[in-house]
């Protein structure tokens, strides 16, 4: 379990991470989502003890990472954004070094190295120099390194960046597999990647936590909009008048059906207008050919948050100019 309380990191006057607090529970896969430069890597580097925090506390299974780093770090396997590989070594030699570094008992080292090699499907390349491996396999060796010592928490920073689509799918499978025995935290700036594997999503924006929940919760709780598309046969005036009572913004346009009109009703909150719209249009004598209700997806939620980010930036830039 990881408890993060009021975590802050400042570089001079620039605040990379600001007052971040959350709890990571055991046995789930967590996704750390945010646009580039949101502070994901900085946060992960702080949780793993690579860099210090300006303020705040991090407890790894009850051990404070800044006060008792050695105890806390035993529980973590970390794959940074760039896999930390010694390219002059073979995969096996490298993993042996990591085992020694992580204080795996001497007689178990060989077994442990074999285990992580099998787990990451790198048997074929185990005796090759890391320098000669492709990006995808380097990433796997990086993951293998994180698994050494069987830590209860695995932290992966952008694990599928720079991989080709096939490798991304394989990496996802690997991560899903890890989720069965470990708590996994992974970061990404790509939503589809996080929603594909994670049980729980934390969205971070400009160093602040803006959303925290399961993918379903996020879609439900966050301010999401609904849209109702209706194909109607009738006069535009009549339709507009009929829908006057309904609390939504209405657009009327041409439809693909030659005789019909395409009406779009948008509401800022989640709602289902099918019944009132149907009644109103029928009462006005219009014929409904089809209806399609859609809610904002997680993608939209994320885009909305990212858009806000863009909006904030423009505002602050404008402020500076003024």
């Amino acid at each position, binding site marked *: 379990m990881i408890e993060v309380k009021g975590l802050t990191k400042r570089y001079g006057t620039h605040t990379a991470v600001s007052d971040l607090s959350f709890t990571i529970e055991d046995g789930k896969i967590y996704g750390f989502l945010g646009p580039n430069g949101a502070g994901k890597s900085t946060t992960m580097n702080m949780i793993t003890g690579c860099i*210090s925090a300006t303020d705040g506390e991090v407890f790894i299974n009850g051990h404070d990472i800044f006060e008792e780093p*050695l105890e806390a770090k035993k529980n973590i396997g970390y794959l*940074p954004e760039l896999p930390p*590989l010694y390219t002059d070594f073979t995969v096996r030699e490298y993993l042996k070094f990591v085992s020694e*570094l*992580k204080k795996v008992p001497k007689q178990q080292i060989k077994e442990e190295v074999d285990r992580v090699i099998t787990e990451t499907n790198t048997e074929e390349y185990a005796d090759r120099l890391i320098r000669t491996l492709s990006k995808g396999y380097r990433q796997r060796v990086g993951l293998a390194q994180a698994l050494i010592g069987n830590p209860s928490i695995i932290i992966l920073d952008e694990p599928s960046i720079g991989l080709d689509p096939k490798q991304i799918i394989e990496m996802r499978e690997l991560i899903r597999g890890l989720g069965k025995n470990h708590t996994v935290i992974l970061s990404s700036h790509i939503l589809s990647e996080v929603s594909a594997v994670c049980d729980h999503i934390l969205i971070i924006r400009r160093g602040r936590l803006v959303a925290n929940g399961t993918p379903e919760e996020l879609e439900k709780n966050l301010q999401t909009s609904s849209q109702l598309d209706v194909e109607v046969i009738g006069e535009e005036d009549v339709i507009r008048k009929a829908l006057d009572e309904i609390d939504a913004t209405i657009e009327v346009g041409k439809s693909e059906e030659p005789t019909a009109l395409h009406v779009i009703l948008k509401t800022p909150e989640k709602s289902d207008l099918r019944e009132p719209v149907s009644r109103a249009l029928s009462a006005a004598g219009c014929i409904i050919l089809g209806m399609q209700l859609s809610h904002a997806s997680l993608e939209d939620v994320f885009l909305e948050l990212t858009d806000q980010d863009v909006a904030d930036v423009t505002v602050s830039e404008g402020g500076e100019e003024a």
Partner: protein
Amino acid sequence: MIAVYKKELKSFFQNIMGFVFIAFMLLMIGIFTIAANFASLYPNFEYALFSSLLIFPFLIPILTMRSIAEEKRQRTEQLLFSAPVRISDIVLGKYFAMITIILIPMLIVCTYPLIISRYGAVSFGPAYSAIIAFFLLGCALTAIGMFVSSLTENQIVAAIITLALMLLLYFMKNLIQMMTSSAVISLIMFGVFAIAIAFLVYSLTHNIAVSAGVGFVLVIALVLLYSFYPEALSSGFITVLNSISIFSRYDNFYFGILDLSSLVYFISVAALFVFFTIQSIEKRRWN
């Protein structure tokens, strides 16, 4: 610490750096031994090592340039920092690995006085105390080189700075002889030092007010000292240069004296710069 030590040693021999280093060191000491002992017919091995001191400015940068800088550049430091080991263990592991690379040729060199003794009367005491001094001087210089490597991400930059520093230290003796000791020169030189310290403070804190304040206070103190006690300054600069002239500490061994204070000096410099290296890495993590 042992894990890092083994890994470092292994990577030295993985990319032939270690072999080249050892071979070159033996070659150069061999050449100087032939020159001093076999060509000039002196039985004193300490003379050969005295000439061999010149190899340090060129060899130490090669040995130390990668040590910390490369970990930073390759981002492998993140593996070390997130592992359950102390920074001091990492630094000491690296340091002892580099020391081992110097120790291997020095152990081979230990046979040279024995070889020379077949051809003349060698006094082993001075010969072996010179070997110990030579090795410890190497340890001290290695620590300085490692510290320089911890300041940059670029191993070439580290190598050039270390080379420049080592050459400066090597020729310090000659520089001191060239210098006339007068209060004004001391004042100027200390003034330059004071400004250098102010810049160092700035590079560490990025705070103009604090660093300018430090520089200002130091310069004012110097000017006051100069106006009231000029005699304190007159030889002051030379004294300071003498005390940091690490290569001159070997001189006593050249004359066959077992100078324990110099050995302690070498070990202290080594310990100090290992400590500085640890601090420099810690500081980077806190930034």
